[in-house]
């Protein structure tokens, strides 16, 4: 940079190469894992549904799985909608129960699961 830049009014943007390296390291760490083994998520989903179905009658379609991949921590959230109680009260909609199983310490979603039981 030359001293003339002072008059040209250039402001230095923050260097971006560091961000490039960090983002690459994260995405490649995950891609390399999935390269060696096949994608386990569909199987995990299927087996979890089987386990839950052993105890509660659930609709296999009412299950949501989401994955958020981060550098230090990844979160796997599994949401199972539990059916309404046996004796439906008049006018009451089927309450949707939620059970979350994150890899990280349980968050607020786990509490939602207790409401339905």
């Amino acid at each position, binding site marked *: 940079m030359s001293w003339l830049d002072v008059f040209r009014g250039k402001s230095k943007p923050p260097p971006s190469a560091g961000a*490039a390296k960090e983002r*690459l390291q994260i*995405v490649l760490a995950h*891609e390399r894992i999935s390269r060696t083994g096949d994608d386990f998520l569909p199987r995990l989903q299927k087996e979890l549904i089987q386990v839950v179905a052993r105890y509660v009658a659930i609709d296999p379609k009412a299950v949501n799985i989401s994955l958020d991949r981060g550098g230090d921590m990844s979160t796997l959230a599994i949401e199972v909608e539990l059916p309404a109680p046996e004796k439906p009260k008049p006018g009451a909609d089927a309450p949707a129960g939620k059970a979350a199983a994150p890899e990280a310490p349980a968050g607020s979603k786990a509490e939602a699961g207790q409401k339905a039981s």
Partner: protein
Amino acid sequence: MAQVIVVTSGKGGVGKTTSSAAFATGLAQSGKKTVVIDFDVGLRNLDLIMGVERRVVFDIVNVISGEARLNQALIRDKRVDTLSILPASQTRDKDALTKEGVAQIIDELSQDFDYIVCDSPAGIEKGALLALYFADQAIIVTNPEVSSVRDSDRILGVLQSKSRRAEEKKEPVKEHLLVTRYAPERVERGEMLKLEDVREILAIPLLGVIPESESVLKASNTGSPVILDDVSNAGQAYKDAVARFLGEDRPHRFIDPEKRGFLSRLFGGRAA
């Protein structure tokens, strides 16, 4: 028995064909009998970069389909007499390439040549898979840029699982990293991934660093591989890379910003 070298990258536009042309020419200049094959059927460009586009009569697909003999399709380079070019077909679709057909061509070329350089198309489809299938060594062309590094990592995975050496559980394909379009000034300003970062992420041995250079466009304009431009940084960097490939120990050049004179620093002119 010839060594088969694939020049590949996954991503397009990073300098595969430029590098294939330069590398093959460099090997031939070192006295090695070298043939460079264009695997980009439908989008051939090696002929233009090598400056032989007006001499193409038959191509690789003609040879595979039995319409021409291999010797009829090979184009002898007029500048380096140990160098030949086998062009891709411009009209046929990619399905015209078959594993058996390519195997036969490589087999036949192996008897006459020391090195067979395979210029891969971009992507991880049939053409790219066939270009790397028979490889003994691979040159991974990478720009210091996120999408290129990611795709290089992907293609390394493909090499390690889908090459013939991988399938036959032989010694793995020898991998070489060739970083192209490197701009030390931009690296210094923190705008571009550092060479060290690319090396660390891909974790394969570094063969060479080709600096971003105006001479590359000039070379493709005139159909003369940039390695023949002795004065250009890019040409010299390719020469170094070829020498290293052949076992010579050469320091990496053009990886630090050029020292600028007092006046140029004072007035902020562009480094020459």
